[in-house]
């Protein structure tokens, strides 16, 4: 337990100490929120869907949590290159504990980021249907964070250098975001698109967030929670396996 705690704490310390990184990582979702939120607002309204800001704010929260949690896993690349990973891998602690400590740390950071961006959304004029919805939405933030932090750990265990990082960014993280319905409604999509969207784990997270905050469900709370929980188990298992295979 001590090992899990100390590695979790390390991730948090790193986050709190890198103020520049906090600002940078909140900057991008803010840009989406403001540029797209206000830019697409009029079109969205004309199409008869109401306020676009109300619609996309939960999506931006999902996006923030996605990026932040995947990156925390990939940050393992730095630890690998600068040697700290080795220090933990020769310690008399099981790899599973190390992986769990790191992943929970990354997930916690992502949750904090998600909460911060939700506050920014509120400042920008977003209003949830009811304030009691916030704890319910928080559950989805946690699920998204765990799913993608585990994915990040798995990827971080396999990647060897920074080129791989670009690859993951362009061919995995961005598609996960764009195909999640964070930015557009999922009804009336072309069939192929509708299928792809349903494969994307983030879709269920965004749907849950949107359902909880503004009561617009594509699926149902039960379905979203079960799918996310199942994927979390799969990714945690896979991540733990890949992490156990790291050689230094």
């Amino acid at each position, binding site marked *: 337990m001590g090992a899990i705690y100390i590695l979790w704490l390390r991730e948090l310390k*790193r986050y709190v100490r890198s103020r520049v990184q906090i600002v940078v990582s909140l900057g991008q979702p803010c840009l989406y929120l403001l540029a797209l939120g206000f830019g697409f607002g009029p079109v969205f309204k004309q199409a008869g869907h109401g306020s676009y800001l109300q619609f996309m704010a939960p999506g931006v929260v999902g996006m923030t949590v996605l990026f932040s949690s995947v990156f925390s896993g990939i940050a393992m690349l730095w630890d*690998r290159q600068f040697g700290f990973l080795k220090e933990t891998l*020769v310690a008399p602690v099981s790899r599973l504990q190390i992986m769990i400590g790191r992943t929970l740390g990354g997930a916690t950071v992502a949750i904090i980021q998600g909460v911060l961006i939700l506050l920014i959304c509120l400042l920008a004029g977003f209003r949830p249907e009811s304030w009691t919805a916030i704890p319910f939405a928080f559950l989805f933030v946690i699920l998204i964070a765990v799913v993608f932090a585990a994915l990040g750990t798995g990827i971080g265990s396999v990647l060897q250098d920074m080129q791989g990082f670009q690859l993951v960014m362009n061919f995995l993280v961005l598609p996960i975001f764009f195909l999640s319905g964070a930015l557009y409604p999922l009804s009336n999509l072309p069939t192929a698109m509708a299928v792809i969207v349903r494969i994307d784990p983030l879709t269920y997270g965004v749907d849950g967030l949107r359902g909880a905050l503004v009561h617009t469900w594509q699926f149902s709370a039960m379905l979203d929670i079960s799918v996310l929980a199942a994927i979390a188990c799969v990714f945690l298992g896979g991540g733990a396996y890949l992490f156990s295979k790291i050689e230094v």
Partner: protein
Amino acid sequence: MIRVQNLVKTFGDFTAVKDISFDVGQGEIFAFLGPNGAGKTTTIKMLTTLLRPTSGTIQLDGLDPTIKTKEARQRFGIVFQDPSLDAEQTAYENMDLHGVLYHVPRKLRAERIELLLKTFELWERKDSYVKTFSGGMKRRLEIARGFLHTPAILFLDEPTLGLDPQSRNQLWTHVKRLNETEKTTVFLTTHYMDEADRVAHRIAIMDHGSIVAVGTSAELKQQTGTDSLEAAFLALTGSSLRDESANSADAMRQVAKMWRR
């Protein structure tokens, strides 16, 4: 304390370590010398559970590290050839994290950290981030950290690489003192013959994956009919240059240096 028998490691059809055997006694300082690519680091990696031997047996304090991995890890400390500190944490936090990972109880942990940081003259800087440390200070911190859980064996893989003579000198003074006070067995590799000559009780010279000679510095000189350890080393390993290919980690370090991370 360390007993290695017929140890072999192959990577594909390349044999990095060819059937080596040696013993290191309790409390001994044992130096492993050899040109680049001789197999020193591969040997250390096998001894420290980072690589599985292709064949042969290892015993650390009576334990086989390939079977009793955790127990063996608890008994040794290691300072890697490359730095392995967390630059974004303070010296004290790095020590504390290590102590937690090695199950050192809280009270003892605090005492040992204070003792070791004072020994290695880092106590005044305990709350500074490691990224602000010089190369010599980082190395000292890593060695202090290696001693934290009172290991029976401490592995040092080229610990003085890139340090100035003052830092090297001081570092070995500390290591020797701890070897005497804590009876820690020390297994080290280095490229500096004078260090091995001064610090090590016994020396093994490795080349092309095999051990070509073992003995005290005096024995090695006598064996080769030379008057310095360096001359003995060259007599045993020849004077041709060895090339090592760079890996992605080296490339990354280059990038990191550019970005000053």
